[in-house]
């Protein structure tokens, strides 16, 4: 072997090893994050965390029951806004529209998807908080719902399009009208994909903090109804982490563990649902 070739082979082996190191570093970050959260959060999580209100400043103990309920309410509202618009919009894109209109809708959805979450917060602020004149669960839910729309829309459309054309033709050849074909054949055929899309969109907004800062704001007590400021897990993590109290830091870790656990479980479940479904191209 000539020295030149030996050198080239060495470079090849070295660089390829380096790419492996890069991949290992990138993936190990996930396990660092999980490890730290389990280590710090696991030791500070307790029954009180789920059942008690936050303790007054300076007092140890207390929990985040109001933030957990607040997050649940926000996410419910977000789903009520994001899922129908995303789902029916996707049906229009995949089944009814042609050319220009579809292009514009897709363009708008991609644009909305790329908007930084803090800007979505400003938008929801001027849309809901300003007219009602105070922070509310409603405003926070709207902000999160707006973020869910484009994610649900685009991936649902992909899954609807992946349904084989022969199914459509078969149903219509039997005399079914188009909406019957969609309702009884196409959507059922794509339901795993659609469920995955909805779950992933849900998981994505579940951890969003920035749009809640000035829409749902925060609250150290229960927030009755939909028209009051409310606490939420992500915002609690933020405020507790940057506060100077040791006890709050522990609770921030616990909240982080709960939030990340929830998000990762939803992600894994969503992918498991999809992988057992019909063969669809990866989106």
């Amino acid at each position, binding site marked *: 072997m000539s020295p030149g070739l030996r050198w080239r082979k060495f470079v090849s082996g070295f660089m390829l090893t380096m790419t492996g190191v890069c991949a290992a570093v990138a993936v190990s970050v996930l396990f660092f994050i999980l490890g730290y959260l389990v280590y710090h959060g696991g030791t500070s999580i307790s029954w009180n965390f789920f059942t008690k209100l936050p303790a007054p400043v300076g007092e140890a103990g207390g929990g985040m029951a109001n933030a957990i309920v607040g997050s649940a309410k926000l996410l419910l509202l977000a789903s009520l806004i994001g899922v129908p618009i995303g789902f029916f919009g996707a049906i229009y894109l995949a089944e009814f529209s042609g050319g220009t209109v579809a292009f514009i809708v897709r363009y708008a959805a991609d644009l909305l998807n790329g908007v930084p*979450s803090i800007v979505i917060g400003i938008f929801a602020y001027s849309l809901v908080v300003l007219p009602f004149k105070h922070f509310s669960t409603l405003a926070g839910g709207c902000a999160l719902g707006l973020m869910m729309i484009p994610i649900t829309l685009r991936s649902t459309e992909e899954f609807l399009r992946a349904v084989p054309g022969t199914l459509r033709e078969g149903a219509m050849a039997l005399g079914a009208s188009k909406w019957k074909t969609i309702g009884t054949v196409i959507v059922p055929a794509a339901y795993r994909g659609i469920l995955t899309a909805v779950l992933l969109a849900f998981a994505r907004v579940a951890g969003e903090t920035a749009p809640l800062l000035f829409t749902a704001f925060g609250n150290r007590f229960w927030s009755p109804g939909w028209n009051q400021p409310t606490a939420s897990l992500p915002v609690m993590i933020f405020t507790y982490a940057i506060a100077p109290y040791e006890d709050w830091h522990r609770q921030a870790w616990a909240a982080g563990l709960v939030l990340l656990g929830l998000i990762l479980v939803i992600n894994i479940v969503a992918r498991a649902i999809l992988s057992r479904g019909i063969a669809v191209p990866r*989106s």
Partner: protein
Amino acid sequence: MATSTTTVPSAGPVAGSRSFLSRIREGDEIARMITFLFAASVVLITLLLVFELWQGSVLPRHKFGFNFFRTSVWDPIFDQFGALPFIYGTLVTAGVSLLIAVPLGIGAAIFLAELAPARVSDTLEFFIDLLAAVPSVIYGLLGVFIVVPLMRQYIQPGLKHTLGFLPLFQGPAYGVGFLTAGIVLAIMVIPYIISVSREILLSVPRDQREAALSLGSTRWEATWKVVVPFARGGILGSIFLALARALGETMAVTMVIGNTPTISASLFSPGYSIAAVIANEFTEATGDLYLQSLIELGLVLFILTFILNGLARLLIVATSQKGAGMGHT
């Protein structure tokens, strides 16, 4: 965004051949209109978003004009608002993050697409997807309690020792600052670079590799001189995508950047970013001019990410079509 290659021929002509009345009776036209309303609302929302941002930032646009971006006094008491320190902080942290994330991300993508067996690659990609799902406030939490102490005690003193002659690495080690924010951002955007670049590399036609190998190039040469250049556009797209994320990222940056409006050559210096100042001051903004100045900052972020995302999409679609156009993959 990547449209599936198996586009199904729509049943349009069949439906179109029936009369309008019969379509109404069978519900097709009604279903079409209802779903159209939902689809149209997406466009409406987007337009409304642009309108609100534009309308909400009239005052500072009229009062400061272009000086808003050139001056660095941010004084709510005297109603003076100059955004330069925030713009500087945003660009510097995003720049630092790309310097770290691009080599690491592309390296990892090459490993996943070119070297790893399909099963390993898919498993690792699954972890990368999970990493992309970690919310930014969690990165902030780890940033505050893990990265900041690490920076203050080891990394910043170490850099000062070795590279301290550069103005970049001078000044006291606070832990928080541009460098820390950049590192946390890098960790956050790496998954985006990996996922998109991997897809792009996988779409490079196989014969490109085989041709290079058959001409006697080593595996690395085939990858670096043939496959990567072929995928160049799409990889650049993934970098733009990551840059857009990094510019708009709020929580993690807010928690580790130090929140002090400074323009300093030193990366150790605490700074401020556009998203962070909006997050911190929006609820406290008293007076219309103050609030509207913050909204104008939001508008700036919107325009930046809009341009970057658009470019990224074009590049990625063009590159993956180039691969598909060559036939077999």
